[in-house]
């Protein structure tokens, strides 16, 4: 199709507007005070899914000073698609262990919820990923967040409101049971990006394209701002490298990474993966007022990063993310 000169006006206008918006966002962000203090992140070794994961998690949760007695806890695994040849989803053993750990720590209620971004039949997907077969009373504990009842939450990036599932909004604590993976658009998908699954498909569709239009980094940060009562447990026992989050290859690392400050957990995961968190856009944004990402301000508990670091393969577009 031949383009006329007048077609360029809206493009030029949009470009100028986008440029100003980006400048304004960065300018105002830089004026915000950085969070004070330090954050604790626990790294524990777990060579396989058959070791005592619940015991390791309980120790890690205590080491991070989290109190869950009497609270309603929602476990949010990363259930995306199923491919028997790779490891897309949070392993079922990690979910079972988290359920046991939070129950034993005195949580009043522990539910499991997820809203996959591509697949409509969540329960069938849960069955393929062995969640239904391996987790006791799965059907009574699980909520399909894509099709849960919803309520509006005001102000979401440049949108007036976002509709979110009541099960997640009611929870006293949302536990991001993420998978340690590379991501072909975001660089890495860890505990913060995992919150995309809290957005209901029944409102925003499959995929949840609204989040892409808002901006992937912006949406990640906004969801984490809304669900700030959270805790992260990242399944890095076997992660995924290369063209993640779906088409990558398994990457055994043998760790669980835990903490209350999700940006700090994700920054630590990035360092373990050989990715510079300062170059991951959503972590850059999150470091401005959501959490701590500088290594010097993260209290590393358990294993040292150097002892478990295992560089993940990165697609060519993300080679510049490599940690020196």
């Amino acid at each position: 199709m031949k383009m006329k000169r007048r077609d360029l006006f809206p493009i030029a206008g949009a470009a100028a507007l986008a440029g100003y918006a980006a400048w304004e966002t960065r300018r105002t962000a830089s004026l915000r005070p950085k969070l004070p203090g330090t954050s604790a992140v626990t790294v524990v070794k777990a060579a396989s899914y058959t070791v005592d994961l619940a015991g390791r998690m309980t120790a890690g949760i205590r080491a991070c000073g989290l109190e869950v007695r009497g609270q309603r806890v929602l476990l949010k695994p990363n259930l995306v698609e199923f491919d028997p040849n790779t490891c897309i989803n949070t392993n079922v053993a990690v979910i079972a262990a988290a359920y046991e750990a939070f129950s034993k720590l005195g949580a009043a209620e522990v539910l499991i919820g997820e809203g996959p971004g591509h697949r409509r039949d969540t329960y069938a997907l849960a069955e393929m990923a062995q969640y239904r077969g391996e987790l006791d009373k799965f059907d009574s504990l699980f909520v399909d967040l894509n099709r849960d009842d919803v309520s509006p939450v005001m102000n979401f990036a440049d949108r007036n409101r976002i509709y979110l599932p009541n099960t997640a909004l009611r929870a006293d604590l949302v536990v991001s049971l993420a998978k340690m993976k590379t991501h072909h658009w975001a660089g890495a998908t860890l505990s913060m990006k995992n919150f995309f699954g809290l957005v209901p498909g029944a409102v925003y569709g499959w995929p949840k394209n609204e989040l892409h239009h808002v901006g992937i980094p912006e949406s990640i940060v906004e969801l984490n701002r809304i669900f700030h009562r959270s805790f992260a447990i990242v399944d890095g026992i076997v992660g995924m490298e290369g063209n993640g989050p779906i088409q990558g290859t398994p990457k055994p690392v043998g760790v669980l990474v835990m903490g209350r400050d999700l940006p700090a957990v994700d920054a630590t995961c990035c360092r373990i993966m050989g990715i510079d968190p300062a170059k991951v856009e959503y972590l850059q944004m999150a470091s401005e007022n959501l959490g701590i990402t500088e290594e010097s301000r993260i209290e590393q508990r358990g294993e040292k990063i150097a002892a478990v670091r295992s560089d993940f393969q990165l697609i060519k577009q993300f080679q510049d993310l490599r940690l020196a």
Partner: protein
Amino acid sequence: MGSPIYLRRLRPARIVPYVLKKSRPKQVKAEIETADYPGVADSYLGTRVNALRKAQNADGGWPYFPGKQSWLEPTLYAALALHGQPEADRAWELVSTWQQKDGGWRPSAEVGFPHATTALAVTVAAARGEFGGPFQNGVKWLLAAAGDESEMYKRIIIRVGSLMGKVEDQRDFSLKGWPWKLETSSWVEPTSMALVALKKAAPKIPTAELRERVRMGEEMLLDVRCTDGGWNYGNRTARGDELRSYPETTGIALVGLQGRAEVGRSIDLAGKMLRETASPMARAWLTIAMRVNGIFPGPHNVNASSVDARNVDAHDSKVSPDVLITALEALGDPDGNHSLLKVAA
């Protein structure tokens, strides 16, 4: 408006409870009025129809899962499954209040913007033979709605973004499909549902604009078909690697493309998926797709000669707690209302 076949089959059995209720005490009456229909209650279709009746909310709508809020999508699929019944009329009364001034339907009472499910509302209006204002406005909304990637400035931004490695430029963005939500991109399921609605509307609104949107929508679906012949949500590749198709979206796309000559190999794949998938939702969609495309698998959703019987017993005999799946399974039954999703060639 003709009664669907299964209702004709049910009607004689209904006489018995009506006669009985006259002589029964009041407390028993309610029980009889909602009693299962003898003889068909335990059939594949009967169990699903009865489950849908039990799951209907007091407001006339259906939730995705029993006891939850009513949503437009399960309400309309359940209304199609129970087409011609009082439950479907109550549902239509409710969803009529969800249509907005712009002609689009909101996805539930709680959500304040119009949604892709507007297409299904137009299809249901056509099935009911109601071609007045709500139908006309719904069609107008569909004709005005398009994935925003088809706008000229967005196509340039996508092209530039693609050169910078920020986005994937993998399809013909001049082909207008439909988004889930306005001001986002077009995807397979909303496009397929809009195609059914507009093809249903075509005899009443025979405009060039409508025909052109149908042509572009069909081309868009064919353009995003995966190499294996099926469809996923709407992307063929990610970062250069080919993506696999999914059974449920393959079924949905084939409903939108029914009658197109180019779908032969996709139909073959759908048959294979139908035998292999573990997803009841996918089986229901694939079955509906096979039926509206003139292919008739045997009872209980699968071709009896080639199916693993264990698979049928394990999955298809049980009614799902998922209302949407139950409605789709009822539609896909040989005696179900799948013909309401069939469009003229």
